C-alpha cells in the first residue's frame, strides 16, 4: 500500500501561547512494499507524522493519501483505514488489558466485525508469527515478561491483517535479543508478505541494517530522504543534528577516507567483513 503526503502541515494548540508548528510542508511518497525508516531528534515531528497515517491526528492542511483513502476528506472511512494500517505505538505493552493473552489479541479483529471463532484463528496465527505458543493463550498478559508483552501487543496489531505497518520505536527498552527478534519479525513481514513498513527509530544500527530508505526529520521538516548507504556518508551534518552514525557506516566512512571503497549494499558486520575478505583475496 502506498503513502503520499503533500504539503502536510500541523500545528499543536493553534492560536494559543503554547502553539507549536510540528509539521511544515512535509512531502513524502512511500511505495507499496517499501521499508522506510523515519529518524530525527526528539520533537522533530516524526511521531506526529506517523500518527497522521491512520488518522489518529487529522490532516489540518495539505493532503495525505494512504492506499485509496484520502485522509484530508471529511467522509473518510476510519474503520477501513485503521484495518489496513496497523499502528504499533511506543511501549505497546501498556495497551494490554484483557484477562487472557488470546482475548487481548482478538480485540482488534473483533472490532472490525470478525466473528469470535474467526478472530481466534487470526489471533493464534498472529501469536505464532511473533513466536508465542499455545502455553501463553490463557495466561494473563500482565504475568508475562517485558519482551513477551511487547510481542503480544504486536500480535494484537498483526491479527488485524494490516497491509501497512507503522511502528513507533518498536525496540525501545528491550534487551539486545528482544530487539533482534522484533526486527527480524518486521523484516520478515516486509519481505515475505509484502507489508509496507514505516518505522520510527532512534537506533541507527537497526535503521542501517533494515531500511530501504531513511527519512530524516528536523524541526518538522524533511531534511534527507535517501537510502541508508548514501545518507550516512553525510557524517558531519548528521552529527550536527544530534544523530549518531551506525557503527558499520562509521567503519565504511573510515575505510573510504583511507582509499578503500567497498562495493555493494553492505549493512551488517558480516557484509563488511566478507567484502573486506574478498577485497584482500582479489588484491593478493
Amino acid at each position, binding site marked *: 500500500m502506498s503513502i503520499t503526503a503533500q504539503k502536510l502541515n500541523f500545528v499543536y*494548540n493553534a492560536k494559543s501561547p503554547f502553539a507549536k508548528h510540528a509539521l511544515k510542508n512535509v512531502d513524502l511518497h512511500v511505495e507499496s512494499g517499501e521499508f522506510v525508516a523515519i529518524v530525527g531528534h526528539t520533537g522533530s515531528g516524526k511521531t506526529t507524522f506517523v500518527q497522521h497515517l491512520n488518522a489518529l491526528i487529522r490532516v489540518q492542511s495539505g493532503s495525505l493519501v494512504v492506499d485509496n483513502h484520502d485522509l484530508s476528506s471529511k467522509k473518510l472511512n476510519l474503520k477501513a483505514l*485503521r484495518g489496513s494500517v496497523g499502528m504499533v505505538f511506543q511501549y505497546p505493552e501498556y495497551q494490554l*488489558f484483557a484477562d487472557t493473552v488470546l482475548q487481548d489479541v482478538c480485540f482488534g479483529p473483533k472490532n472490525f466485525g470478525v466473528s469470535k471463532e474467526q478472530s481466534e484463528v487470526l489471533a493464534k496465527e498472529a501469536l505464532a508469527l511473533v513466536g508465542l505458543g499455545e502455553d501463553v493463550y490463557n495466561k494473563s498478559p500482565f504475568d508475562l515478561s517485558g519482551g513477551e508483552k511487547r510481542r503480544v501487543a504486536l500480535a494484537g496489531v498483526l491479527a488485524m491483517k494490516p497491509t501497512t505497518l507503522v511502528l513507533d520505536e518498536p525496540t525501545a527498552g528491550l534487551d539486545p535479543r528482544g530487539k533482534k527478534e522484533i526486527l527480524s519479525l518486521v523484516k520478515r513481514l516486509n519481505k515475505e508478505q509484502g507489508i509496507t513498513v514505516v518505522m520510527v527509530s532512534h537506533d541507527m544500527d537497526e535503521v542501517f541494517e533494515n531500511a530501504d530508505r531513511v527519512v530524516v526529520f528536523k524541526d518538522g521538516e524533511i531534511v534527507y530522504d535517501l537510502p541508508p548507504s548514501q545518507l550516512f556518508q553525510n557524517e558531519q551534518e548528521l552529527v550536527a543534528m544530534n544523530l549518531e552514525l551506525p557503527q558499520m557506516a562509521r567503519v565504511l566512512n573510515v575505510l573510504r577516507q583511507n582509499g578503500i571503497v567497498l562495493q555493494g549494499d553492505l549493512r551488517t558486520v558480516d557484509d563488511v567483513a566478507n567484502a573486506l575478505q574478498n577485497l584482500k583475496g582479489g588484491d593478493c
Partner: protein
Amino acid sequence: MFRDVTFGQYYPSNSFVHKMDARVKLLLCILFMVGIFFVTSFVGFLWVTLFLALAIGFSKVPLKSILKSVKGIVVLLVLTALLNVFFTKTGNLLVDWWIFQIYDDGLIYAGKMFLRLVYLVVGSSLLTLTTTPVDLTHGMESLLKPLRIIKFPAHELALIMSLTLSFIPSLIEETDRIIRAQKARGADFDTGGLVQRAKAFVPILIPLLVSGFRRAEELANAMNSRCYEGSTHRTKMRVQKLGWRDAVGISVVVVVFSAIFVVHATKGAWSNLVPWLYF
C-alpha cells in the same frame, strides 16, 4: 483529544499580578470571595467591577480566557437567575401571565445573584490563571504552617497535593496514548448504546490503572531511595518573598473591601441619607 487540556489553566505571563506572592494572592482571593457576599447594592457592584477590571488589566490575561471559566457555570447561572425571578414575591408586580408572576424585586435579586456568581468565578480563576499550581500548593503549605501546633500535617498535605497535580498531566498523556492505541486497533467509543459505550472504556481504564500503580510505586521507590522524610526542616529551592507589589495589591483590596464592609455595616443607619448607595 486531551492534548488541549491544561490543568489549572495557568496563563504564562510576566505581569504585575503574576509576580505577586502566591500566599498574598490566596488570602486576597479568600477576602474577595467573602467580601463579594457583603455587596448588596449595584453601586457596590460597580466598585467591584472597577476593581476586577483593574486586576485583570494588570494581570495581562486576555478577557477571553477569563470568560472561558464563566462558560463552565452558565447552566447554574441561568437556573439561579430564573429561580430568583419567578420565586420572589415582593415589590411591584410587573408581569402576571398564567402561573408566572414577575416582581421587580425578583429581577433585582436575580441580577445581583448573577453578578455575584460571575464575579466569584472571575476572581478565583484570576488566581489560578496567574499562579502556577506548584506555587499555589507551596502558598497553601506556608499558610497552613501555624496549624502544626495542633499536629496538622501541613507539609504532607501540600506534598500530596503537589504530587497529585504533577501526576495529572502525565496521566492525561497516558490516557491519550492508550485511547489512540486502542482506536488504532479499531476500538469505537462514539457509537452504540449506553452499556456498549461503558464497556468500550474497559480497554482504557485497565491499562490506565495498571500504569497509575506502576508510576506511584516507582515514585515511592525513588523517594525512599533518596531517604525522603516528611517535614523535618526541609528547605525550599525557591523561597517566597513579599515585595512591593504585594503591598500595593493588599492596599488596593483592603481599601475596596473596607469600603464595602462599612457600607454594609451602616445599612440601616444611612439608608435614608444616601439611598442611592444602597440600591
